[in-house]
């Protein structure tokens, strides 16, 4: 080390002690504060991504002939993209409703229990209302993503996924 780089106190006291190069408490606090800033930046980035990312709500398209689904039965399809599993239910009162098949807890695929008129997630026993998609039991906090559907003539059409 160049002598000009050595602080004056070191020249006056040229002795070293074990552990002298360890991280001091003050330095440790500095690292914590840097981490704190990193977390804040990450949080802001997530918020920005949440606002700016494009969300595909899908476009209107034909799903299935209504007669293929018995009353109280369900039909699986993909919407709005081929990577998005969805489930169409023909209720006993002949209404049709459709939801994203991804559980809002951790993304497992839900299935329809016709006896109870409920959507059930087998992974962590999340239960949703089969008519509205709202949470009835279990760990999910948000309702199932709803897909607007309409019967045109004898065909069920998907009109778009709700945000």
């Amino acid at each position, binding site marked *: 080390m160049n002598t000009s780089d050595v602080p004056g106190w070191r020249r006056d006291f040229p002795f070293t002690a074990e552990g002298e190069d360890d991280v001091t408490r003050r330095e*440790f606090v500095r690292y914590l504060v840097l981490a704190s800033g990193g*977390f804040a930046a990450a949080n802001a980035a997530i918020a920005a991504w949440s606002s700016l990312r494009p969300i595909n709500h899908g476009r209107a398209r034909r799903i299935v002939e209504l007669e293929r689904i018995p009353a109280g039965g369900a039909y699986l399809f993909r919407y709005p993209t081929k990577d998005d599993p969805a489930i169409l239910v023909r209720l006993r009162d002949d209404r049709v409703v459709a939801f994203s098949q991804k559980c809002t807890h951790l993304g497992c695929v839900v299935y329809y229990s016709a006896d109870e008129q409920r959507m059930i997630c087998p992974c962590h026993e999340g239960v949703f209302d089969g008519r509205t998609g709202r949470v009835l039991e279990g760990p999910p906090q948000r309702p199932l993503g709803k897909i607007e559907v309409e019967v045109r003539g004898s065909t069920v059409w998907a009109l778009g996924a709700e945000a």
Partner: protein
Amino acid sequence: MRRGQRTVASAVGVYVIVLLSLQIFLLTVALDALQGDDPGLAWVTAALSVVLAGGSILFYRYVRAR
């Protein structure tokens, strides 16, 4: 470093760790908001996280000033 200064640095370290823990929690909430398409909630968590980071910086400035 004198004993008093070490004690202050330790205490401030504990406070900052508490703030950091809250920020980790806020990050999980923000990720949940991202999955649930809820940008409003994500921005609220971001604002709170920035406030907590500001608190951490103030604590650090206090330690440095001593």
